[in-house]
């Protein structure tokens, strides 16, 4: 399956990556090759083999509903670009106007 340059730009936008035209031109065939590689699975998978979503067999790994200490606030806020009123201050949320 070949990805068009527009599709590459679309995926890049969704991932918030900015690509130059040269990069788009270079990535389109590379991504297409990766997709083609994954597509091989479809050629060998028999109808009776259930799709696998996980390499591990175990199921139902769960924990009891018991509290554990959270991080100290200073520690978690240390990773914030800006702090205001003990919160993470980020650029204003812009609604995507269509």
């Amino acid at each position, binding site marked *: 399956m070949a990805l068009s340059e527009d599709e590459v730009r679309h995926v890049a936008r969704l991932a918030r990556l900015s690509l130059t035209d040269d990069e788009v031109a270079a990535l389109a065939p590379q991504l297409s090759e990766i997709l083609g590689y994954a597509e091989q699975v479809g050629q060998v998978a028999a109808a009776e083999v259930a799709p696998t979503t996980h390499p591990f067999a175990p*199921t139902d790994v769960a924990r009891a509903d018991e509290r554990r200490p959270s991080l100290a606030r200073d520690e978690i806020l240390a990773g914030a670009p800006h702090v205001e009123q003990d919160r993470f201050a980020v650029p204003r949320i812009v609604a995507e106007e269509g």
Partner: protein
Amino acid sequence: MSADTLLPQGWELVVGLEVHVELQTNTKMWCGCSTEFGDEPNTNVCEVCTGQPGSLPVVNAQAIEDAILLGLALNGGVAEVCRFHRKNYFYPDLAKNYQISQYDVPLIHDGHLDVDVVVSDDAGEESIDRRRVRIERLHMEEDTGKSLHVGDTGRLHGADRSLIDYNRCGIPLLEIVSRPDIHDPETAQAYLRELQAIVQALGVSDARMEEGSIRCDANVSVREVGDELGTRTEIKNLNSVRSLGRAIRYEAQRQVAVIEDGGTIRMETRHWDESAGRTETLRVKESVTDYRYFPDPDLVEITSPADRVEAARARLPELPAAARSRLAQAGVVREQAAAIVGAGTLGWYDDAVRAGGDPQLVANWLAGDLVGQLAAAEVTLEESGVTGAHLAELVGLVADGTLSTKLARQVLDGLIEERGAKTPAEVAKDRGLEQVSDEGELRTIVERVIAANADTVEDIRGGNAKAIGALVGQVMKETRGQADPRKTNELLRELIG
């Protein structure tokens, strides 16, 4: 307003609801952080709920149990095997840049909820119409953080910056998606109210709209009767049952106006502005493929074997609809039954009836005077110490004439003051609130009143039967309102002859 005045002739409204319920577990969905509402910002946050590299989410077993319970209450099927997906999008209230949700296989599928809607016919006669709303799915996901928008105006669009508190991020969230089976605002409101009542009855969430522990988005479209489904818009920011009804009404009428004007409806998310009473474009909806869902490799599949499902089914309590019809069968009027079940005072009702209280008389108090009296005393029924047995005794004292309704109200105030430490009979006795219905005592008072009002007595003997009212009033005055009016009347008639 009835359905036919909502839209012009020939148009039909189609609504599906997405309701989010925050579960009241001790800890978040994937980590041991507390879910307490109202804690200091960013104090219930760890590596997992902020998606730090190398951290691993682990499913909260209680959240799964709660979700299955709600799914069963909504008549849904439980998936034998289900899994979690990552829904990828960038928004600062979700630090991981993806939300863990469910995609192809939700935990619960294909349920339904029957709701009762009051309809009135042309003659204004009210009746109950039971409507079934099918539920497509109920899936587990996680809540996002809370944003505070600050800047020039403080509103979403004009804010300079957003301040994020991640305490809520990762709290277990259930999304309940209905089918587009709703065709008027009243049914949508009834559905939301019923869902809220069920969630509360199960105790899986306090389901408070004002605190955001239950939230509702509406997918609204219109079509000409017989046509295929029209393009829908998703309405957000519905903060009350009332907003839900108003927003659906506004949006349906807006869409019809746009189409009749030759325009088309865009698939978009719209924001309900409660004070302006209208919806506004928030953003054009991303297509579902743009979320690039894929199975979360950090989590394994969840299985629900039949025995586990049946064990959950056995734990289902009486649901609100069943409780309401049980009360109705006991003779309680519909509105009061709904009020009692809705207010969570069913336990008191049951205790009172078990203690011998007449169902309707108990309901009169529970759904009537008691509500206002508790509010005036600023206590909840639980805090008041008033028990079902107290209520049974109180209605008994009124029924046998020991207390008038007015005195019973005072006894109830006394009970609330004493926090239920005494019985109604004790309160009545202590405070001298019993009606004077003792024959001997009342007779003495009546004789005294007759002697002191010779003119009125003559008047009555002369044929003016109505004048007896004045004498009853005198007796009441002498007894400070505690005379049994019926007995007083009887004695007056007997003694005047």
